[in-house]
């Protein structure tokens, strides 16, 4: 095993889907940009286990969607490999190879308004994956399975929903259809790329609870990509924090939220809306709003050397600009990449 593979996760058995030291760089095109690359994901390992939800938390441009798309075979990794059930996935070029992969791994996208075809009824939308993956044949069998899928995502009474068009449904209901469509392939892994961020706050919980039920009852391995750390804590087993293409912290969901060890995780938590934090916003110390304190994630074309968070980091020391910090492992299964935990070199 490479050094960066997950030691803590052995307790949960073999991973179903795993990214090992994957790297993604996108070459740039256009005048004056020849040879430049977007360093979207730095060597990153991530393992998904049956019956567990792993939350990947980060801002826009942190590379979280790129990572998900590599896991979904939408982009080939520049380096590293994707392993399904312990075997490396050859980049499936043929339709047959891709279909075999997608029978195990399915995605749920952010926008349920554009991910469902507007011209088809739910019956058709859900029948396609069932037929493509050979799970149902014959009209009666197909109908039975479609109704079953609708029931599993709580679109009941299912026989009233089956002949509806997506435009007749609310956003939350559409996202349920998208989940049902993913389930139709009978996957082991569900990759959710911000599956609730387009929905109203009031409906988000229903979808999260549904995903939680799928994990508990059907043993799905779920990757939940989000920028909402409170939602991640609510139902994920594990939280991983990604910043500018580098995983900076990981651990059990409660531990990461209650005891964030990376300064970036702390920034995320401080920024999350929290009504219990009395008047913090109005009484906040007078901050100087120059561009530096306002800081945004760096450009990934020319990212900062070392720890990419160092230009915004309150704890930054010279060493932070020179090398990416090694992993510091804690007893509770949490780990962090931050020089401040390395007493010898933190200067």
């Amino acid at each position: 095993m490479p050094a960066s593979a997950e030691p803590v996760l052995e307790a949960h058995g073999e991973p179903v889907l795993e990214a090992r030291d994957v790297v993604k760089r996108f070459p740039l095109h256009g005048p004056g940009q020849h040879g430049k690359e977007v360093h979207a994901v730095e060597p990153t390992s991530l393992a998904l286990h049956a019956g567990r939800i792993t939350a990947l938390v980060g801002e826009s441009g942190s590379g979280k969607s790129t990572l998900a798309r590599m896991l979904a075979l939408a982009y080939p990794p520049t380096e590293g490999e994707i392993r399904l059930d312990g075997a490396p996935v050859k980049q499936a070029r043929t339709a047959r190879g891709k279909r075999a992969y997608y029978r195990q791994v399915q995605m749920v996208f952010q926008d349920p308004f554009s991910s469902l075809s507007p011209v088809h009824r739910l019956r058709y939308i859900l029948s396609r994956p069932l037929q493509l993956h050979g799970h149902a044949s014959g009209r009666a069998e197909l109908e039975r399975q479609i109704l079953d899928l609708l029931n599993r995502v709580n679109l009941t009474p299912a026989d009233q929903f089956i002949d509806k068009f997506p435009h007749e449904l609310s956003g939350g209901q559409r996202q349920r259809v998208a989940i049902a469509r993913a389930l139709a392939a009978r996957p082991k892994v569900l990759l959710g790329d911000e599956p609730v961020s387009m929905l109203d706050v009031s409906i988000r919980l229903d979808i999260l609870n549904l995903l939680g039920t799928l994990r508990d009852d059907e043993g799905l391995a779920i990757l939940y990509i989000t920028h909402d750390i409170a939602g991640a804590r609510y139902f994920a087993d594990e939280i991983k924090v990604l910043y500018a293409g580098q995983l900076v912290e990981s651990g059990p969901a409660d531990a990461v939220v209650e005891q964030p060890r990376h300064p970036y995780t702390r920034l995320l938590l401080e920024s999350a809306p929290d009504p219990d934090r009395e008047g913090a916003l109005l009484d906040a110390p007078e901050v100087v709003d120059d561009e530096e304190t306002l800081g945004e994630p760096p450009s990934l074309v020319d990212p900062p050397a070392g720890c990419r968070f160092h230009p915004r980091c309150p704890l930054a020391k010279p060493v932070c600009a020179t090398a990416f910090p090694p992993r510091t492992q804690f007893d509770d299964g949490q780990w962090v990449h931050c020089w401040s935990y390395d007493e010898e070199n933190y200067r």
Partner: protein
Amino acid sequence: MTTRHQEPLLTVRGLHVDYFDRADPVHAVSGVDLTLLRGETLGIVGESGCGKSTLVTAVTRLERPPAVTTAGSVLFHGKDGAPPVDLLTLTDRQLGALRWEKIAVVFQSAMNALNPVLRLGAQFSDVLRRHRGLSKKEALTRAGELLGMVGIPADRLRSYAHELSGGMRQRATIALALACEPDLVVMDEPTTAVDVVMQRQILRQVSRLKRELGFSVIFITHDLSLLIEIADRIAVMYAGKVVETGPARQLYTDPKHPYTEALRGAFPPLHGPRREITGIPGSPPGLRVLPQGCAFHPRCAHRFEPCDRTTPPLLALGAGEAACHLHQTVRGEEDHHARVS
């Protein structure tokens, strides 16, 4: 914050907005009364389709067909006891004089609010030259100062909107809204499209600028947890009506309307034990076929006999108002007891 300024800036009375896109109109906003005090941040919260945006586009006279304001008044109170003007009766020319000067609007999508083919500087100087009569040079200097207020270096004036990050674009639209030091800034989901860290930075800036410049804010969002932190008072909308208003903290600690209570319970907390919580069952009703009685009753956990028959009026309750039979009955009984004893 509110105690300092008790004079109203904006008084909305009996506002009705209908959409005339088919044979029979849809009542998107029906009978809304709201008061915004000077220097106050008023939050308006509700799920999608509750009429929040319709309400503020009507108030700012930015509604587009098929939306038509069919009844009501929106009184805008000038400084120093000047007589209030009803925004709904103003001509386009009179409105034009108020826009930017007195009332500015920040929309959700900064990408669409900024002109993609003009440099930032041109957009700022457009407003400043028209409304402030500045020369081109003065306007650019002032524009640089305005950008500085939101932490964007002045050399960005030469940038086009697409050259800025999402957070910067949104901050630029806020700076633009403040260009003529308006009394009222309406913000329609200004931070929905940006990340949490940027959201917090923008909100902190808005509250600092508000302290410095003293404008009032109407802030629309579907995220009650956010509003509780930033608003002085909150109005909760459901199906085109205001169902509860009150001080922000009170809505969090002691919500009166079951809908407010459900909204409050719908976001996962950052602290305390992890326990299963549920969203609000169902979705907001289609405005074309509203349920009889209280529009929330099909989703309400506390519904009882009168809820599906009569619509509860919005009545004063404690420091706020609520439109719910639950409290009206309780209060009625109290009155009854008071009378008996």
